[in-house]
């Protein structure tokens, strides 16, 4: 039962370092060590926090809430044929809205600081997550429609990638969509550049600009766990649930590593979008998810 | 056989005209073509009801509209000679070659008895008209030509979609034959939703040709920019082609359950056309554009006539015929007006009665005729339309149409009176007005006289022909 939870946590240990390493190698450098991001977090734990006078309660509790929601979402994902820790009908809606709750708290904490830059970033972040939500829900709904169940654990138990042509097409589209959604939700290129230092161009980074010390560490841990979370979702899509457990463990880490490398390469060879192209870019994802929906409609014989 | 000869010779004439070196040769060839067209019409009258070359039938509607085309051939050619008399030989040839091609394709479209053949001929007319609209080679002409070809192509593509939907009705295994007679056999078992969709596509697609509401803008631009003799032809006979296409599909579907739906759609389209015509005519400053809006209004009336049913069917066909005669004479007059006043703009025109009384009389008579003021013959079909609307209880449509028609009467009559009697509003650069031999107006007076004659006496052969054409429609 806890296997999924533990595996995701373990994968999160490697994930950010792998992305950084890939980006460095693609730029021709050697890059930092694999565990460097976590060493940074340990350093942060040792530091104290500085809170501004204008910030109130929300600012102090937001990072903890974020981490708590991500951990709660981790409880919902299954692994192999075991059920997840929490599993009931319609739990993918809880999944999406737990993550949304975390984001909500980050947004209002950003507004709580009273800084206009953070407010600007918060409004953009709210818009982009709103636009990406239909894509995610349509995708999940098509999963549910295809297999006939509405709980993550049960859906992935019954989803086989090698059905007929249409299932293959659907899985390819679904995997592509999940990768894109993951990159948007985690504020990566081409929507948001995590390395930018110009506040006018920041979206996610600017919201967490004022946190320090322990809180900052919590936020970073939440981000890394979210990455691994999406990686686990993609893994569940690709690999059928019935295979040998040890093989699956190995495949799990392989898929996560591959995911990290793909993100690293995609980031290295892409420029950041112009800000007003972003809504169009994200809405395109919803359009593609509609196509996936269409494919499933054809598949389940609801459309000839 | 005669039809085959007609088509082959027309194509040959059109091609040879392009190659001739002297104006006299082109003029002779065009007159030869006019003679051929008139003899084809006579042949059609004699052989009413028969089918030639598998795809062409001389049924009543075709014969009626073909006769209108034949009547208008000689005046068009005559006025065309006068209009293009100062052009280079090459442009002269292109103009007349295009004219021959256009009239051939229109004749083919009238006579076709299969949906696809009709469609092909309508597509061909678009190309011929484009050549003619661009005759002046000005920038406005270029713009109008491009818009015309493009939007007509889109309309034709949509009409083809409608035809495809008709094809869907057949299902598997039948040898499909898209001729109208064989459609009648399968139509009663077809899914009504398909019929509705097919009708809407066909209506929207052919409304580019007929000048009805959804795609009327292109015809307005084309008619105001084309040379006046060409305008006379395309504003009347080409709109008749569009009308015939829609009418054939309508009469095909009228035995099924989609009849009320089609009537509603047609009345709506007609009402919106008249509304747009009235609105724009009140601010029109270009005389040919005003006449183009008048064509739009008359086509709207025809659509309402068909949608109303009963008396409306007879009225629609009569209105189309009379409108062709009256509108063409007005357009011929516009050609002469441009030679005397050197402009079409309302602001720069005036004192026409003093400068050229014969032409001004044509304008006055033509105005009376086209606005359906008695003694114009067009009053009869309009009265029948109102009667049909009252019979159906469509009071709102009736009141709206009457109010809009009065706007149009106001707009057009003030403008034409202004041109005839007042002095120009802007006495800008006054060019010496040209002079035109009054003999040239004879053809226009003859056409208008026919229209006025119909008001008092409707010859039995005409009544018979029209009644035969509407015989299949439900009473």
């Amino acid at each position, binding site marked *: 039962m806890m296997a999924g939870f533990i595996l995701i946590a373990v994968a999160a240990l490697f994930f950010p370092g792998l992305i950084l390493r890939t980006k460095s190698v693609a730029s021709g450098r050697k890059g930092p060590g694999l565990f460097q991001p976590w060493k940074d977090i340990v350093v942060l734990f040792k530091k104290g926090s500085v809170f501004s006078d204008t910030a109130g309660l929300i600012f102090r509790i937001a990072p903890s809430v974020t981490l708590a929601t991500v951990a709660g979402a981790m409880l919902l994902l299954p692994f192999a044929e075991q059920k997840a820790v929490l599993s009931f009908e319609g739990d993918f809606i809880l999944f999406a809205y737990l993550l949304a709750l975390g984001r909500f708290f980050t947004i209002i904490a950003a507004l709580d600081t009273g800084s206009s830059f953070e407010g600007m970033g918060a409004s953009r972040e709210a818009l982009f997550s709103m636009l990406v939500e239909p894509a995610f829900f349509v995708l999940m709904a098509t999963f549910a429609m295809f297999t006939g169940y509405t709980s993550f654990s049960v859906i992935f138990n019954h989803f086989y990638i090698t059905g007929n042509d249409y299932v293959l097409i659907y899985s390819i589209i679904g995997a592509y969509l999940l990768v894109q959604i993951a990159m948007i939700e985690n504020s990566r290129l081409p929507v948001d550049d995590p390395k930018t230092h110009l506040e006018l161009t920041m979206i996610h980074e600017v919201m967490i600009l004022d946190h320090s010390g322990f809180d900052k560490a919590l936020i970073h841990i939440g981000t890394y766990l979210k990455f691994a979370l999406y990686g686990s979702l993609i893994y569940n899509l690709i690999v059928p649930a019935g295979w040998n457990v040890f093989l699956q463990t190995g495949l799990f880490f392989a898929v996560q590593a591959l995911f990290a490398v793909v993100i690293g390469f995609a980031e290295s060879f892409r420029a950041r979008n112009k800000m007003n192209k972003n809504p*169009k870019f994200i809405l395109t994802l919803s359009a593609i998810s509609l196509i996936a929906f269409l494919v499933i409609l054809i598949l389940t014989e609801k459309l000839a | 056989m005669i039809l085959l000869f007609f088509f082959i010779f027309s194509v040959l004439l059109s091609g040879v005209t392009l190659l001739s070196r002297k104006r006299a040769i082109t003029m002779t060839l065009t007159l030869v073509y006019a003679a051929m067209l008139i003899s084809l019409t006579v042949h059609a009258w004699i052989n009413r009801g028969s089918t030639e070359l598998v795809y062409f039938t001389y049924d009543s509607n075709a014969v009626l509209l073909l006769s209108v085309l034949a009547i208008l051939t000689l005046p068009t050619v005559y006025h065309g000679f006068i209009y293009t008399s100062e052009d280079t030989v090459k442009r002269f040839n292109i103009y007349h070659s295009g004219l021959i091609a256009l009239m051939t394709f229109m004749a083919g479209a009238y006579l076709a008895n299969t949906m696809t053949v009709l469609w*092909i001929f309508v597509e061909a007319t678009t*190309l011929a008209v484009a050549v003619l609209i661009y005759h002046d080679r000005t920038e406005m002409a270029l713009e109008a030509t491009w818009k015309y070809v493009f939007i007509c192509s889109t309309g034709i*593509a949509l009409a083809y979609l409608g035809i495809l939907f008709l094809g869907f009705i057949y*299902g598997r295994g039948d040898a499909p034959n898209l001729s109208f007679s064989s459609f009648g056999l399968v139509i009663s078992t077809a899914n009504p939703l398909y019929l509705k969709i097919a009708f809407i596509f066909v209506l929207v697609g052919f409304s580019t040709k007929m000048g009805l509401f959804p795609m009327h803008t292109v015809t307005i631009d084309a008619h105001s920019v084309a040379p006046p003799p060409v305008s006379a032809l395309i504003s009347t006979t080409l709109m008749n082609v569009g009308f015939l296409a829609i009418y054939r599909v309508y009469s095909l579907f009228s035995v099924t359950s989609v009849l009320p739906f089609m009537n509603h759609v047609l009345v709506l389209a007609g009402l919106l056309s008249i509304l747009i015509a009235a609105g724009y005519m009140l601010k029109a400053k270009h005389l040919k554009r005003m006449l183009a809006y008048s064509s739009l209004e008359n086509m709207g009336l025809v659509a309402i006539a068909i949608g109303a049913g009963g008396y409306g069917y007879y009225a629609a066909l009569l209105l189309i015929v009379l409108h062709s005669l009256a509108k063409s004479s007005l357009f011929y007059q516009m050609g002469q007006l441009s030679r005397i006043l050197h402009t079409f703009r309302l602001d720069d025109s005036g004192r026409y009665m003093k400068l050229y009384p014969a032409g001004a009389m044509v304008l006055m008579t033509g105005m009376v005729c086209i606005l359906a003021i008695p003694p114009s013959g067009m009053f009869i079909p309009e009265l029948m339309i109102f009667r049909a609307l009252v019979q159906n209880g469509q009071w709102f449509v009736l009141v709206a149409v009457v109010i809009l028609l009065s706007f149009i009467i106001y707009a057009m009559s003030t403008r034409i009176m202004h041109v005839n009697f007042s002095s120009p509003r802007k006495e800008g650069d006054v060019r010496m007005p040209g002079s035109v031999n009054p003999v040239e107006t004879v053809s226009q007076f003859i056409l208008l006289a026919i229209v006025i004659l119909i008001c008092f006496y409707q010859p039995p052969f005409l009544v018979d022909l029209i009644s035969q054409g509407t015989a299949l429609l439900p009473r």
Partner: protein
Amino acid sequence: MVNYLIVIFAITLIYFASAERLSTYIRLVALQGLLLCGIAVFELKEVNLGNLLFIVAETLLFKTIVLPYLLGRIIRRSGVTRVHHQAVPGFYLILFSIIGLFISVILAMILVNPFINTIYLGIALFTLFTGLLLIVTHKLIISHLIGFLVVENAVFLFSLAVGNEMPMLINIGILLDLFVGVLILGFFGLRLKPHTNELTMLKD
């Protein structure tokens, strides 16, 4: 196999709404021509060989090679800036495209007919909608021309749906390509400028 082609076709239509450069449009049109050729080859099994060869040749040559080449020449010759002008911001284009996809799928489910493949109907309706959307929301006349090409592809798809019984309909639909050829000739012959977006001289 046909299923893959149809899904890729639908994806190209969505790409139309989100593309920014005119050269992307031309590449998409060429890709659509290729996909249509493939669909025709796999779908029309009951048509006699000569007719099938004609259709395949026409689609391949005309739609995939000749037309994009001519369009590319127009763009390069007139130096139209690579970003096309539109009257509506890109965001709304995608939104309308999505709404169009919805409407086409619903319409196809309503119009279900045992004799036609419903998938063709749905995708053809979506193609029609996208083509009309392109014509209505763009200002450059070269974009209008590309929109017309997409409408033509819709007509081709529709006629493929009944193509096995009535191959004549497909042949006549190909005549529409002739029209496009004439329109393009107009660009060359009349020296139209593709970035003419001031077609507003004809007023009252």
